[in-house]
């Protein structure tokens, strides 16, 4: 899939999830390099600890190439039914969910084989 199309699907999938709660504000930020990108999305809705934990789990699930290569094509395009962040989780290098002022921030790092994490500020989990 071309990068532009892929980005559109990623943004669509994340936006669909955030918008399902009808936020007052939603901010999307993108940083692209040749071998990868960092996508960030923020909202101003209340989210419980359980929900944040579930988002983290879905977005950091084990990589499943057999699912990503086939069902991953539905990312951002399946708008009937509940949003499914696990479709994203199989395809991203890393993700992070954190509380901000009034809502949450979801960070996604996506890249190919030559992805260099040092070019992006992936948190160092010690």
């Amino acid at each position, binding site marked *: 899939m071309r990068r532009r199309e892929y980005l559109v699907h990623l943004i669509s999938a994340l936006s669909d999830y955030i918008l399902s709660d009808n936020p007052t504000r939603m901010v999307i930020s993108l940083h692209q390099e040749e071998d990868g990108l960092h996508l960030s999305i923020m909202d101003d809705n209340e989210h419980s600890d359980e929900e944040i934990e579930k988002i983290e789990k879905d977005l950091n699930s084990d990589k499943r*190439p057999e699912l990503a290569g*086939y069902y991953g094509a539905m990312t951002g395009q399946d708008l009937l039914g509940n949003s499914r962040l696990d479709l994203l989780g199989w395809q991203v290098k890393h993700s992070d969910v954190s509380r901000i002022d009034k809502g949450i921030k979801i960070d996604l790092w996506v890249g190919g084989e030559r992805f260099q994490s040092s070019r992006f500020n992936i948190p160092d989990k010690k």
Partner: protein
Amino acid sequence: MVLFRMDRQHRILLVLILLIIVLLILTGMWIDGPRKVLTGFLDLQLHPARLINDFIEIRGTGAALLNGAIVGLIGLILVLINGVSLSGPTYAAIFTMIGFGLFGKTPLNIAPILFGVFLAGRYVRKKFSQYILIALYGTALGPLVSTLAFEIGLPYPAALMLAAAGGLAVGFLLPSIAVAMLHMHQGYNLYNIGLSCGFLGLFAASVIRAGGHTYSAALQWHSGNPLYLVLLVPVLSLLLIAAGFLEEKGKALRDFVSIQKLPGRLPSDFMEMQSVGGALINSGVIGLLGSVYIFMIGADFSGPIIGGLFTIIGFAAFGTHLRNSWSVLLGVFSSTLLFGMSPSSPGPALAAIFGTTLSPLAGQFGPVIGFIAGFIHLIMVSFTGPWHGAMNLYNNGFAGGLTATLIVAVIQWYNSTKAEL
């Protein structure tokens, strides 16, 4: 090497699947004796395979079980050597391959399709592991290969080359079609490759007809219910339930209950979403209840019926459970009676089992939608077979995909229009 990199869960599934494959082979040898089984197995490779060719009726239970076991083993080997995890989707794929090895798939007719999908991956620089599910399920068009090789009347060298080319071609096209078809029903038809193979089969059957070939109807169906055929799936189901409890004990039962709350829409890996133990119990329960249904309506435990039960056992780890399937089954049953068909005749009996491809509709939108889906499904599947020359083994997946697309389109229109108001 792959074995040592596996975690405990995957090793348990590997041992379980291998045990089932070996038990099927041994059961076949015990029923019919090694000589008859082996000669029958070889004969099956050269036999037409379109719907409905019941391999149990054609060459006996033993040969059919050996064929099914080897087809399933091929799937398992491909999963392992490509480093793909054993979990819901691959468990479902292997059980489906075993099941359809009783009435259509053979090692010979699936090989060109598998290679075709492999070539498609190479062409777009994707690893085979990313397309493996498409490849394994795509073997539903194995009868196309057998038809070209053994039915259209060409001399053997040309027929075999044409068969190989046909299998390669459909395998090559499958990844693109499979993704396109997913968008149509948005994951509400579990047997998406059935829809994809049906779509491709439309074109293939038309080309073959244009070449002058006339399809003759095929119905080879094993009747009579020897005890070993009646008990095959229930015994397997109990084994799966026992394995589920052994794996996770009391937690497995709680996970089984939690699975019932999931919609089941593609891709729902119950083994990952809950646990292996819970999914195995769900598998066993679905297998038992499916067997009870077949027994109660007085249908035959034929190759296709047993194959169907194997399939729903597999998909009980990847989308199907009690709560999302009962209304679909009721819809199929009601439709059968309303249109004056017998529930125990081949078409309706298979539709009842395979109609569970529409379980996600019930899981997401409720039992009324599930009932409607099952009702429509029975009507559609009664007519879609000839469209693809009966070369698509997943005819119920094809009809189910069309039904799901219709229902999804209506619901989506209603939801978006209502929002505007």
